């Protein structure tokens, strides 16, 4: 892997106009207390990212248990009951513990820097919303050790599986999900308050970097749907413990109502997990193509359209539940409509690349892989949107392939791209490009080995969430399991690369990347604890 990357910007050119001048007003707590009591957006951002990485590995180990069991047909390693707990916990941990906190962590670090704010608008609330998470997930993980086991009903926890037939630990699961939800809500309030009120003088909404824009829209989605999730799990709690019958047909309730409520939350939730990724990629591609982003305004409008449409498509998860024909048609067409704003984004990224002076730093590699592989996930999504075809694909590995393509090489790759992109700002050192490339190629090959064969086994009829399968799926599953192990191991390279970058490496100037233009590159690298104590001098660039 010979490096033919351009020379990095030299330290002499670095500008240290703002930030770094903060004087320490008082003795700061040291050791553990420093992290427990911190109200600094950068420290809290770091805490979020470390927490998310930890959860990523725990959820990853659960996924590897699943893949190990599926390596061969038949039951070898785990009992079906435990297998169900593994699939469920893998989903819950990855969605609520890994992807969402990672984006909140990136927002904590970068949103104040990108809008020229000294900190988040509500620093103490920020501390609280982070520290809810370790408590919530310790509680969630502890259910695995309880009598009857942990949640075993899939991450979508459909009633009555999660009420009438649920293990006794379900009440703890509900409590931990409530805490994780409150954490997300408080984080969203903080981000909205920061973006709307603390922008540098002269920065209009349409001057904001796209990562800030996508997070603003994501935060509004969180405000709109996390209360719905809270409502659903509260109803579950009452059904289980207080004898109500929201989802119990015996008492006049309706289990299908659960699915409607869940997906009314759940579909916007999947966009919560991808919109900030769009923002990160929209920062990285222009930087390494050395061109301004093509179609800035259309990117903003496309993001907003996706967010609005996300409220009108929920029942495409429920095509086989017995919907009337008119509903199948409605949800089929609204779902396909989402391809339009998403297509606008993909074409804008490609147009940004067109005739650019492209270099392939690790961040750019991940961003480009995002565009290609996320599009594959988008296309399989279009196939699933076709209601009559969905009757074949529903609850098969085709669905698993689809949502893993949009979440792993989608959301996760974007997060990793963001980490490689902003590491110089966080640590003051460039990440090791050679190690980064190894990580990238191992991940790309691993991800595709894992999830591409799932399209085929799914179309051939292999059902999801089952620990055993028919013999004809054996080869596809073996390939998937090998790929999963490869992807999992390659993430150790990521951790190694990050630790190496924190400890040392080539020094980065304030403007670490030649083509990076946003405000965060005007503060020194590493960014001092306090930045923009006086608002920066913001000059709008024409988009």
């Amino acid at each position, binding site marked *: 892997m010979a490096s033919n990357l351009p020379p990095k910007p030299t330290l002499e050119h670095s500008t240290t106009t703002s930030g770094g001048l903060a004087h320490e007003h008082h003795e700061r707590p040291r050791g553990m207390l420093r992290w427990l009591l911190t109200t600094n957006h950068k420290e809290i951002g770091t805490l979020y990212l470390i927490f998310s990485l930890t959860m990523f590995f725990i959820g990853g180990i659960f996924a590897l248990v699943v893949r190990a069991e599926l390596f061969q047909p038949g039951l070898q390693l785990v009992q079906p009951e435990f297998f169900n707990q593994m699939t469920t916990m893998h989903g819950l941990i990855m969605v609520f513990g890994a992807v969402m906190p990672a984006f909140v962590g990136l927002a904590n670090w970068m949103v104040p820097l990108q809008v020229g704010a000294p900190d988040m608008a509500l620093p103490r609330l920020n501390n609280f919303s982070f520290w809810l998470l370790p408590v919530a997930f310790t509680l969630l993980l502890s259910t695995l050790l309880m009598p009857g086991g942990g949640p075993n009903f899939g991450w979508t926890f459909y009633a009555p599986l999660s009420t009438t*037939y649920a293990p006794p630990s379900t009440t703890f699961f509900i409590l931990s999900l409530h805490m994780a939800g409150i954490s997300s809500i408080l984080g969203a309030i903080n981000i909205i308050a920061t973006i709307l*009120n603390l922008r540098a003088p002269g920065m209009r909404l349409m001057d904001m970097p796209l990562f800030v824009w996508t997070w603003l829209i994501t935060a509004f989605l969180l*405000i709109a749907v996390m*209360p*719905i999730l809270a409502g659903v799990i509260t*109803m579950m709690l009452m059904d289980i413990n207080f004898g109500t019958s*929201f989802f119990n*047909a*015996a008492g006049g309730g309706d289990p299908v109502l659960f699915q409607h409520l869940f997906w009314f939350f759940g579909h916007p939730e999947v966009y919560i997990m991808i919109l900030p990724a769009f923002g990160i990629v929209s920062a990285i591609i222009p930087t390494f193509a050395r061109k301004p982003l093509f179609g800035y305004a259309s990117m903003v409008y496309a993001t907003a359209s996706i967010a609005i449409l996300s409220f009108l498509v929920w029942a495409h998860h429920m095509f086989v539940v017995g919907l*009337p024909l008119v509903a199948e048609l409605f949800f089929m067409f609204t779902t396909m409509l989402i391809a339009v704003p998403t297509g606008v984004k993909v074409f804008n990224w490609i147009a940004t690349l067109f005739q650019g002076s492209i270099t392939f730093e690790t961040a750019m590699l991940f961003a480009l892989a995002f565009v290609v592989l996320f599009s594959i996930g988008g296309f399989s999504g279009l196939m699933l949107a076709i209601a009559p075809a969905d009757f074949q694909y529903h609850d098969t590995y085709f669905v698993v392939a689809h949502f893993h393509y949009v979440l792993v090489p989608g959301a996760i790759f974007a997060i990793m791209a963001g980490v490689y992109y902003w590491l110089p700002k966080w640590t003051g050192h460039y990440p090791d490009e050679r190690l980064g490339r190894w990580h990238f190629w191992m991940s790309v090959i691993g991800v595709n080995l894992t999830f591409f064969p799932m399209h085929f086994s799914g179309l051939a009829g292999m059902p999801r969430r089952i620990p055993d399968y028919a013999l004809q799926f054996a080869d596809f599953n073996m390939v998937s399991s090998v790929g999963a192990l490869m992807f999992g191991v390659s993430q150790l390279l990521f951790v190694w690369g990050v630790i190496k970058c924190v400890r040392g490496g080539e020094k980065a100037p304030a403007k670490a990347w030649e083509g990076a233009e946003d405000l965060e590159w005007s503060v020194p690298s590493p960014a001092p604890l306090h930045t923009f104590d006086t608002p920066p001098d913001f000059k709008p660039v024409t988009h």
Partner: protein
Amino acid sequence: MNPVQRTVFRTVLALMGMFAFAFALVPLYDAFCQVTGINGKVGDQPRSIANEEVDTSRYVTVQFITRSGKGMPWQLEVEHRQMRVHPGQPTEVNFAFSNNSGKALTGRAVPSVSPSQASLHLRKVQCFCFEEQHLEAGERLEAPLVFQLTRDLPPDINTVTLVYTLYPVTDSQSQLQAQTSPVRGGGV
């Protein structure tokens, strides 16, 4: 109020609104389904027979499925598993509850109609599903279902499936309802 406080106040207001909306969706969903008849639920009140000419040119297959929910030691049998009826024709079919357990129990049969659009055109004149049943240990109770499929049943519906699921009724409040219910084991 400074601008940050105003933003926070508004978002918290929106949050509480959405939380209330989640609970408001429960009655809204029921009302919506009742009006459009799209979740296969039929009303829990008896309805009169619509006076209309029987459409002898058309047959509709009506199937009955009976089953017992979790923790319900009863059996529900039906006289005919499947019958062919004309739209507009009132039909009676007998069901039999039997309590196979060693103790008295109250239960109820919860109905569901498939395809759900058919529920708008199904009129139940008499049904055991309107009430709870109380059966002594080992007791057997026969109860009729009288229904009519109206003539405006969409032409593409050729088969209508009526599902009855038995559930135990245990809490004290429902026991009171069972006492006032006209159909009781042994009383009929």
